[in-house]
C-alpha cells in the first residue's frame, strides 16, 4: 500500500501475491550461504532471487537508486541492497556476513551472504556453520578456479549437507551445453577428494534470470530444476541428527512457589535424537541414570521432542543436574575425553603461541584448554597438509590437538554439528579467536 495523500484506498497490487492469513503457516526454514569471488555475479544473483520472489520493497529500491545516482552510476547497483554499513557502501566492498531474508509460499529462506575477498575464510566459516545449503558460483567463462576449490573445501569441512554449484554467466558463453558439461566434469573430479554428500549443478544467468526463478528458454538442453525450485524442494528433513539423543542442559528451572514446590526442570535445546517420556537416560558427566518423566513446554507436555526443539525435561529421580551437563540415552553416549583432535579455523589477528591456553566452549559447557600441538596447516586451495609451516594467523585452518581441564562430551562433527563443534575464547580480550570441528 502506498502512503501518498492521494491514495485513498489500497492500490490494486501487482507486485505481491495476496496472501490469506494462514497462507504461510506451514513453511519450512532453509538457511543457505552464498560464496563467490568479486565479479562472479553473486550480488546480482541475490538481487535476482530477492527481486523475482518479490522481497524488495519500493522504498528500498528507491534508496538504492538514489545512492547509485550519487555515486555517478548509470545503472541501479543491486549490490547496494546487500551492503549495510557506511564503509561498505562507500568502498563498495562487503566487510562482514550480511543476512538476507525472503520467502516463497513454500519456504522461508535465510541467506548468509559472505564476502568474497577480505577475511574470506572467517566469514564463510561463520555463514556455513548453520547452513543447510551452500551456493557456489562459478563463472562459466573461467570454469573451476582456485576460489571455487576454496569455497568447496570450506563447505565440506563445515559439513554443509547440500552443495549447489551455479554455473553463472551462461549468456556470455552462448548458453553452450559443452561449457556447462566440462565445468561439471572438472568439478566432480575435484570434489571426489571431498566429503560432500549431495552436489547439484545448475546453468544460470543471474543477469538475465535464466534458470534462477524461471526456466531458461535458451538452455532447453538442461532438464534439471531452476535454482529457486531446487531451494524450495531440496530435502532438509534429515539435516538434523534424529538418531543420537543429546540434550545439553542450558539452565535449571526452579519456580520455587507453592504450585511448583519441588519442580526441577532442565531447560535446553535438543542437539540430537528424539526424546520421549519414559526413556532411560544417563546424565553426563556424573553418570547418574534416571527416566524422562515429562517433556514440558508452555503449551503443555509433549509425547516426543526432537532436534532442534527447545524444551524442558523433568526426570523421575531427584539427581544433581546443572548447566553444562548432557542428558543422553544409556546405550548411545558421546565420548568423554580430555584430549580432542580438532580442525580449527583461526578467526583472530593474534595467532596462537605454542601451548597457548584458551577457554573452550562446547555445547553449554565451558572449561580451560591448551593447544598441545599443531599437527598441520591445511592449504584450502589444494588440501595440502603443511607440516613444516605451523605459523597460524587469521583465516588459517589447521589440525590441532587440544587438552582440556575436564572431559568434554565429544561427538565427531561429522556425526553431529551441534555436539561436534567448539569455539576458543581468549581470556584476556574475551574475543572468540577460533572455531573448531571435532574429528
Amino acid at each position, binding site marked *: *500500500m502506498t*502512503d501518498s*495523500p492521494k*491514495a*485513498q484506498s*489500497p492500490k490494486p497490487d501487482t507486485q*505481491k*501475491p*495476496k*496472501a*490469506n*492469513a494462514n497462507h*504461510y*503457516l506451514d513453511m*519450512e526454514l532453509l538457511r543457505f550461504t552464498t560464496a563467490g569471488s568479486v565479479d562472479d555475479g553473486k550480488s546480482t544473483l541475490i538481487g535476482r532471487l530477492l527481486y523475482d520472489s518479490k522481497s524488495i*520493497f*519500493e*522504498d*528500498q529500491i528507491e534508496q538504492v537508486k538514489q545512492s547509485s545516482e550519487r555515486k555517478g552510476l548509470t545503472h541501479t547497483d543491486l549490490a547496494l541492497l546487500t*551492503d*549495510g*554499513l*557506511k564503509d561498505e*557502501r562507500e568502498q563498495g566492498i562487503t566487510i562482514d556476513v*550480511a*543476512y*538476507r*531474508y525472503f*520467502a516463497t509460499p513454500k519456504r*522461508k529462506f535465510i541467506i548468509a551472504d559472505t564476502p568474497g575477498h577480505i577475511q574470506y575464510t*572467517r566469514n564463510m*566459516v*561463520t555463514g556455513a*556453520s*548453520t547452513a543447510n545449503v551452500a551456493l557456489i558460483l562459478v563463472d562459466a567463462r573461467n570454469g573451476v578456479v582456485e576460489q571455487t576449490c576454496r569455497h568447496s573445501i570450506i563447505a565440506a569441512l563445515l559439513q554443509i549437507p547440500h552443495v549447489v554449484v551455479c554455473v553463472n554467466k551462461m549468456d556470455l558463453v552462448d548458453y553452450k551445453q559443452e561449457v556447462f558439461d566440462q565445468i561439471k566434469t572438472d568439478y566432480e573430479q575435484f570434489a571426489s577428494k571431498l566429503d560432500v554428500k549431495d552436489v547439484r549443478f545448475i546453468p544460470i544467468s543471474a543477469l538475465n534470470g535464466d534458470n534462477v526463478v524461471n526456466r531458461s528458454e535458451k538452455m532447453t538442453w538442461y532438464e534439471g530444476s531452476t535454482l529457486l525450485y531446487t531451494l524450495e524442494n531440496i530435502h532438509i*528433513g534429515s539435516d538434523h541428527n534424529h538418531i543420537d539423543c543429546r540434550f545439553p542442559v*542450558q*539452565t535449571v*528451572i526452579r*519456580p*520455587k512457589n507453592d*504450585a*511448583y514446590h519441588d519442580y526441577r526442570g532442565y*531447560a535446553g*535445546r535438543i*542437539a540430537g535424537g528424539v526424546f520421549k517420556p519414559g526413556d532411560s537416560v544417563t546424565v553426563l558427566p556424573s553418570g547418574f541414570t534416571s527416566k524422562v518423566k515429562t517433556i*514440558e*513446554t508452555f503449551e503443555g507436555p509433549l509425547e516426543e521432542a526432537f532436534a532442534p*526443539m*527447545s524444551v524442558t525435561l523433568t526426570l523421575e529421580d531427584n539427581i544433581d543436574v546443572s*548447566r553444562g551437563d548432557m542428558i543422553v540415552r544409556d546405550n548411545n553416549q558421546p565420548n568423554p575425553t580430555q584430549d580432542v583432535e580438532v580442525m580449527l579455523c583461526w578467526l583472530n589477528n593474534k595467532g596462537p603461541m605454542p601451548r597457548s591456553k584458551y577457554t573452550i*566452549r*562446547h555445547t553449554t559447557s565451558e572449561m580451560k584448554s591448551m593447544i598441545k600441538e599443531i599437527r598441520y596447516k591445511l592449504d584450502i586451495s589444494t588440501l595440502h597438509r603443511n607440516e613444516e609451516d605451523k605459523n597460524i594467523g587469521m583465516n588459517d585452518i589447521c589440525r590441532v590437538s587440544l587438552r582440556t581441564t575436564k572431559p568434554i562430551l565429544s561427538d565427531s562433527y561429522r556425526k553431529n*554439528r551441534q555436539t561436534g*563443534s567448539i*569455539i576458543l*575464547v581468549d581470556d584476556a580480550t*574475551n574475543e*572468540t579467536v577460533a*572455531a573448531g570441528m571435532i574429528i
Partner: protein
Amino acid sequence: MNYNLTHLKELEAESIYILREVFAQFENPSILFSGGKDSIVVTHLARKAFHPAKIPFPLVHIDTGHNFPETIAFRDNLVEELGAKLIVGSVQKSIDEGRAAEEKGKNASRNAIQTITLLDTIEENQFDACIGGARRDEEKARAKERFFSHRDEFGQWDPKNQRPELWNLFNGKHHHGEHFRVFPLSNWTEMDVWQYILAENIAIPSLYFAHERQVIWRSNTWLPVSDFIQIGEQDEVVTKQLRFRTLGDITITGGIESDADTLAKIVEEVASARQTERGNREDDKRSETAMEDRKKEGYF
C-alpha cells in the same frame, strides 16, 4: 515419521535458546520493552522459555515522555499480568538534570537523546545484558547485528570488529562495565512476527489496528496530532482511518491508511505491503546511515 518443524516453530526454538543463554551467561540481564510488537513478542518468548517460573528479567522502558497513552496502558497491564518488575528510564528526567538537551524546531524529537537515558539506565542498574526486539530485516545496519552484540564501557557498538558467531555457541564474556545487547528475533522478519502474533494470539496495543485519528501530513507520512508536535499554519489537520506498522515515540511514528482491524487482515496487508515498515519512521530518514550512526552511540 516427520521430524520437521515449521519455520515459526524453528524460529521460536532458536529465540528461546537465546533467551536461556542470556539467563545462564549474564548476572543482571533485562528486557528493553518499548510497548511495540517486537518487544511484546520477545516478552512472550521469555515467558515460554522459563515456564512455569516467572520471567527472570525486569522490563526496562525508556520513556521519552512523548507516548501514545495506549502504549503506556498496555505496558502497565502486561507488567501486572506477568508479575514482572518494571524499570522506567525517563528522558524528561535526563533533560531536567541537564544530562540531555532537547532538540529545537518543528521537527524536534526526543529520539536521539533517548540514547543518553538508555545508557544512564543501564549504568545505574548495572545491567550486563539488555535484550531487544530488533530484527535484521528491519534496517541495513541492523542486518549486521549479532545475536550477542558487544558494547564497550561507553555503550558503543563497533560494527567492523564484531565477534564471529558460529553454530549455537554464543560468547557473552565481557569486562566489568561493558554490556551486551541481545537480539533473539534476529532471524525473524516483519511477516514472521505478525504470523506468530496471529498464531499465538498475542495481545498487542490497539494502535496496530485500523482506527480513526487526527493527523497531519508531514515528511511523507501521517503524523498523529498530539500535545508534543508543533502544528504550523500550513499544516492541515484531518481525520483518517489508519493504523501504525511500528510504534515509537508519538512525534516520529507515522501511520498508514488502512482498514485492517483484525490480526488476519494485518497479516494480509503486510503480505502485500510495498514499503518497508520503517518507511514511516522519521528517525530513520535523517540520513542514509541514521540508524548506523545512532547504533554506534548506543541506541537500541
